[in-house]
C-alpha cells in the first residue's frame, strides 16, 4: 500500500501528459473547424450595450455587405492585443466590424472602448453568453468573416494578429468582395 503511494506521482504525471497529448493532436486553435462554415449566421437579436454610443443589432439587419463579426470582452487580454489590428482593418481596408460584447459588464465594456478607441459599427451585448453558444465559440476573442448573403465563410479563434490579416483575412475579403 505504501509502495503504491510512491508510484502515484509517476502515474498522475503520465495521465496528465496523456490527456494533453490527446488534446494537442490535430489541434490548431487559430483554425478550428466550425460547424457553421458556409451556413447562415445564426439569428441573433442583441441589445445595445449601456453606455456605449452604438446600436445593438439583429442578424436580419446585416445582409448586403461583407463584414467581420467579432466576439470580444473587456476582461480578455488577447482582445486588447487584437484591438489595434481590427481597428486598422476597419480604417485602412474599410471592412465593417460588428461586435458581440460577450459576458461583459456594460460599464467595463464602455471604458474599454473609450480607452482603446471604438472601431465597431454596431455592438450587441451578449450578457448571458447565449449568442456565444449560438455562434459555437470556443473562447474570446473570436472573429467571423460573413459574406454579403449573411453566410459565415471563415472563423478565427484567438486574437487576430497582423500575420493573420496578411495571410488569411485580406485575401479572403478581396475574394468575397469580388
Amino acid at each position, binding site marked *: 500500500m*505504501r*509502495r503504491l503511494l*510512491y*508510484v502515484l*506521482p*509517476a502515474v498522475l*504525471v*503520465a495521465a*496528465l*501528459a496523456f*490527456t*494533453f*497529448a*490527446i*488534446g*494537442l*493532436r*490535430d*489541434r*490548431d*486553435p*487559430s483554425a478550428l473547424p466550425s460547424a457553421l462554415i458556409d451556413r447562415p449566421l445564426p439569428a441573433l437579436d442583441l441589445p445595445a450595450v449601456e453606455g456605449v454610443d452604438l446600436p445593438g443589432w439583429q442578424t436580419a439587419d446585416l445582409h448586403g455587405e461583407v463584414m467581420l463579426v467579432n466576439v470580444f470582452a473587456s*476582461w*480578455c*487580454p*488577447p482582445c*486588447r*492585443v487584437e484591438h*489595434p*489590428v481590427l*481597428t*486598422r482593418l476597419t480604417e485602412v481596408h474599410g471592412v465593417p466590424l460588428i461586435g458581440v460584447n460577450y459576458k461583459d459588464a456594460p460599464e467595463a465594456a464602455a*471604458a474599454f472602448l*473609450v*480607452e*482603446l*478607441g*471604438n472601431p465597431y459599427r454596431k455592438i450587441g451585448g451578449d450578457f448571458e453568453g447565449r449568442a456565444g453558444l449560438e455562434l459555437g*465559440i*470556443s*473562447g474570446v476573442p473570436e472573429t467571423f468573416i460573413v459574406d454579403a448573403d449573411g453566410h459565415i465563410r471563415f472563423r478565427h*479563434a*484567438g*486574437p487576430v494578429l*497582423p*500575420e493573420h490579416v496578411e495571410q488569411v483575412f485580406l485575401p479572403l475579403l478581396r475574394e468575397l468582395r469580388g
Partner: protein
Amino acid sequence: MIPELAHLALVIAFGVALVQSTLPLAGAARNDAGLIGLASSAAWAQFVLLTFSFGALVHLYMVSDFSILNVYQNSHDSKPMLYKITGTWGNHEGSLLLWVWVLTLFGAALAAFGKSMPATFKARVLAVQGMVTVAFIAFTLFTSNPFERLDPAPLEGTGLNPLLQDPGLAFHPPMLYIGYVGFSITFAFAVAALIEGRVDPSWARWIRPWVLIAWSSLTLGIALGSYWAYYELGWGGWWFWDPVENASFLPWLAGTALLHSIIVVEKRDSLKSWTILLAIFTFGFSLLGTFLVRSGVLTSVHAFAVDPDRGMFILLILAVALVGPLLLFAWRAPQMRASGAFQPISREGALIMNNLLLAAATGVVLLGTLYPLFLELVTGEKISVGPPFFNATFIPLMVPLLLILPIGTLLAWKRGDLRRSLRLMSLAAVAAIALALVAAFTDPRSTIVTALGFALAGWLFGGAVMDLLQRAGIGRSSWARLPARLVSLPGSAYAAAVAHTGVAVTVIGITASSAWQTEVITSMGYGDSQRVAGYNVTLAHVGPVQGPNWIANEGTFEVERDGRHIATLTSDRRHYPVEGTSTTEVGITSNLWRDVYVVIGEQTGDGLYVVRLYHNPLVVWIWLGTLLMAVAAVVSMADRRFRVGAPEPKRAKAAAAPAAPAPQAGS
C-alpha cells in the same frame, strides 16, 4: 557564413551534450576517473559553443540580417539598438536559444564551482543536466531553428510587437529563464541522488546555493514581469492570474517549498523523499510553463506562434523528464529513512506546515490554471477561471502560512517550546495591532481585510526582528553583549529575517494598493483639471511626438498637491507603422507612499481626451518586498558554510556553529 557556423556550433553542442549525458554515468558506475572528468569538460565545451551560437544570433539581430527568417519576422531596421538586441529573445526561436544558453551556463557553473562534492556525484549531476540539454537542443534543431535562411532576403523586416519594445523586455525573460533553468540543476541533483540512492545533510548543503540562485532569479523575473504589466499594459493592475503568470508562479511556489524543506534535510536528516519530489516537480512546473506558453494551448499576451508539433515535442520532454525520475523515485524513496524522532512542535514541524500549505497553494493555482484547459479538451466548453477563484482559494492558504511563519522561526529544532515562542511573539503582536490601527484610521475605505493585511505584515516584521534577537541570545545573556552578538550572527540568519521582512513589505503593498486605489475616468480638454485622491492633475498640452519607429500623440500633465508642483507626466498613444499597431505609454510619478498614474485615451467627438487617472497607495512596496526576498537569497548564498568547502557532514556542522544558537538559514 556566421549563421551556418552558429547552426553548426549548435549541432556540435548537441553531440557533446549526448556524450555528457551518457559516458560520465558509466564512469561514475565503474569509478573511471577519465570518464568522470569528461563531464566537466563537456559542460565547458557546450557553454563555449552555445555562447558563440547565441552571440551570433544577437549579432544578426544587431546588423538586421533579413536573410535570416527569424530576424525578418521579428525585427526591422529603424528600431533602436536596444530593442534590436532584446528582440533576439522576443520570439519563440530566439528565446529558446537563450534558454539553452542558460542551461549550458548552469552546466559550466556547476563544473566550475561544484568542487566540494565527490567526483562521482558531480559527474552524475552533470550527466542529468546533459540530458536536459540534449532534449532542448533537439527541440531547437528539429522544430525551431533560429538560423533558417530566407531567399531572396527582404529589404525590411516585419517588426517586433510594440508591447515588447520596452526596457522591461531586456531583463524580464532572462531573469525568468535563469530561474526556470536554474531549477534544472536542482532537478539534476535530485535525480543524481536517486541514482545513488543517497540523500543526506551534505546533499542538502550542495544543492542549497543552486536553489537559492534559481529562486532569487525567478523571484526577480516574476516581479519584473508584474511591474512591466503595471506600467506598460496601462490597466493599473499588476497581477491578473493570467495562465501564463500562473505558469511562472507554480515553480516559484514549489521552489519556495523546496527552499525550506532542504533546511530540514540539512538540519534533521529527514523529509528526504518529499524534498526529492519537490525538486523534481519544481523543474516540472518550469517545463509546464514552457509547454503552456509555446504549444498554443493558451492564447495570451505571452503566447508565441502556434505550432502543435512544438507543443507535442515539449510535452514529450515534460513526460520523459518527469515520469522517468518519478519511477526511479518510486523505487528508491521507500528506502530513504529519516534519522531521529519527529515532534510536531518544533522548527521542522513548522517547516512541514509551511510545505503543506505551499503545496496546497501550488495545487490550487495548478487546478485553476489547468482545469479550464481540461474542460475544454473534454467537453469543448471554454470557461474562464479568474481572480475570484484564486482570491477565494489562494489567500485563505496564505494567511495561516504567514501566521505560522514567525512562530516557527522562533521554535527550536527537535523539540520546540511553543509557550516561549508565543511569549516572544507578543511584541510582534503589538506591532501587528499597531499597524492594523494605522490602516483602519488612515483611510475610510479600510475594511477588516485591510486591517488584517496590515496586522499580518506587522506580525511578520515583528517576528523577523524577534528571530534575530532570539538568535543573538536575548534574555539568555546580558543586554550589553547583544549588539556584538547580533553582528556576529551568520549571514543566513539575516537572510531569513530580510526575506520574511520582504514578505511583510509585499503584503502591505498588495493590501494597500488594492484597498485604497482610486480610479477616475474622465474627459479632459486643455487646461482642464481633475482631482484624484488629493492630487490635482491638469492636462497641459497634447501634441504629436516622433519616435525612432513610432509616432505618438503625447499628453502632458501637471500634477500638483495643495498648490505644490509634484511632477510633469507624459502619456502617449503610440502608433508603430511597421507593425501596424498601437500601444499606450503610461505616465507615472512614483515614491515610497504612492503612485500617480496617468493614461491618455482616444480623442472624443467634442475634442476632449479620455483620461484615466489612478492613485495607487504603497504600490511599489509590492516590488520592494520581492526585491528584499531576492537580495536575501543572495545574502544566504554568501553564508560561511557554503563558502567553506565541507565535504564531511560532521566537520561541516562544527564549522557552521560559530555563535551559540546554530545558524539556521532562510527558514
